[in-house]
């Protein structure tokens, strides 16, 4: 039996729609960018946990600087790399709020290394969402500390030569050894299975703030198809083949219940 589409598209048959925590603003991100998917997952968790009035987000400098245009929550926009400092004060002053930073790899793993490491070291009871696509997106595809060896970027046009340009910085592995950190996981969002797993991880981190066990850190290995100069679908494949071996997915540390 073939049903008419009109008979299916009825309110009583609705199984997935945009959460109202997402604004109606069209995202400025490039087609296929992982940022949008992660934004959505965070918005859905805030909606499902019913904590819209208790969340304060801190946006970075980089492509996600404008994250505040897309989630209907109170936002602070930080200077480059400083989001964990803002979040530290915010959580200390409002311990019953859910406070999170949203930072890219240029922001968190380069200019902001001091702030993230010391927020981790102090065991700040916040959640950090770390988008790692191995490149500076907003400024036009320059090399980041997370850029893979041999990877071509606009400032490593012949490929990242580790003898002069250093090695990929694996922040998640570094901070996992700090006692102030309660949860470190590395996820991705390129497939429905991966996105659903990432969503569970983010939800766990947000709920984890209620346990006051320290900082929860979620790295999302992501794409920058514009910076990588690929189609979105090819970028997802390239990420699986090249980024995942360097940044393997899964929980690195989990002290949360």
């Amino acid at each position, binding site marked *: *039996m*073939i*049903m008419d*589409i009109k*008979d*299916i*598209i*009825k309110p009583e*048959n*609705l*199984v*997935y*729609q*945009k959460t109202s925590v*997402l604004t109606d603003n*069209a*995202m400025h*991100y*490039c*087609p*296929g*960018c*992982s*940022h*949008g*998917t992660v934004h*959505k997952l965070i918005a859905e968790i805030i909606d499902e946990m019913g904590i819209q009035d208790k969340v304060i987000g801190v946006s970075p400098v980089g492509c996600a600087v404008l994250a505040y245009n897309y989630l209907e929550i109170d936002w602070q926009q930080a200077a480059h790399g400083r989001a964990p400092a803002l979040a530290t004060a915010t959580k200390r002053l409002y311990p019953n709020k859910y406070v999170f930073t949203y930072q890219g790899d240029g922001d968190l793993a380069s200019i902001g290394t001091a702030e993230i490491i010391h927020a981790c070291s102090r065991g700040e009871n916040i959640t950090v969402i770390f988008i790692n696509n191995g490149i500076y997106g907003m400024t036009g595809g320059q090399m980041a500390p997370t850029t893979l060896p041999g990877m071509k970027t606009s400032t490593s046009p012949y490929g990242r030569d580790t003898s002069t340009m250093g090695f990929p910085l694996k922040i998640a592995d570094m901070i996992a050894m700090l006692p102030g950190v309660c949860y470190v996981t590395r996820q991705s*969002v*390129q*497939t*429905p299975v991966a*996105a*659903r797993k990432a969503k569970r991880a983010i939800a766990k981190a947000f709920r984890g703030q209620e346990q006051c066990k320290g900082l929860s850190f979620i790295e999302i290995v992501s794409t920058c198809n514009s910076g990588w100069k690929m*189609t*979105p*679908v090819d970028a*997802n494949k390239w990420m699986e083949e090249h980024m995942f071996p360097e940044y393997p997915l899964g929980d690195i540390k989990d002290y949360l219940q």
Partner: protein
Amino acid sequence: MAMKGAIVVDIEKCKGCGVCVANCPTETLALHKEVNGKGYNYSYMANPDTCTGCTNCAVVCPDTVITVYRVRV
């Protein structure tokens, strides 16, 4: 019992990235040969009969432009 689904794409917000198409398990989706107001080949149900309403396309859509409906048949 089989599931029968259908999706609605917010055509003007779709950027035609194709991630939904690549992740559709029933090959329901494709990018339209026509473009939207921004010049993107938007996603649509090329084979509506095969949609099961699994929501995979909506979950991976970076711009959250897909709404999913499903019935048991």
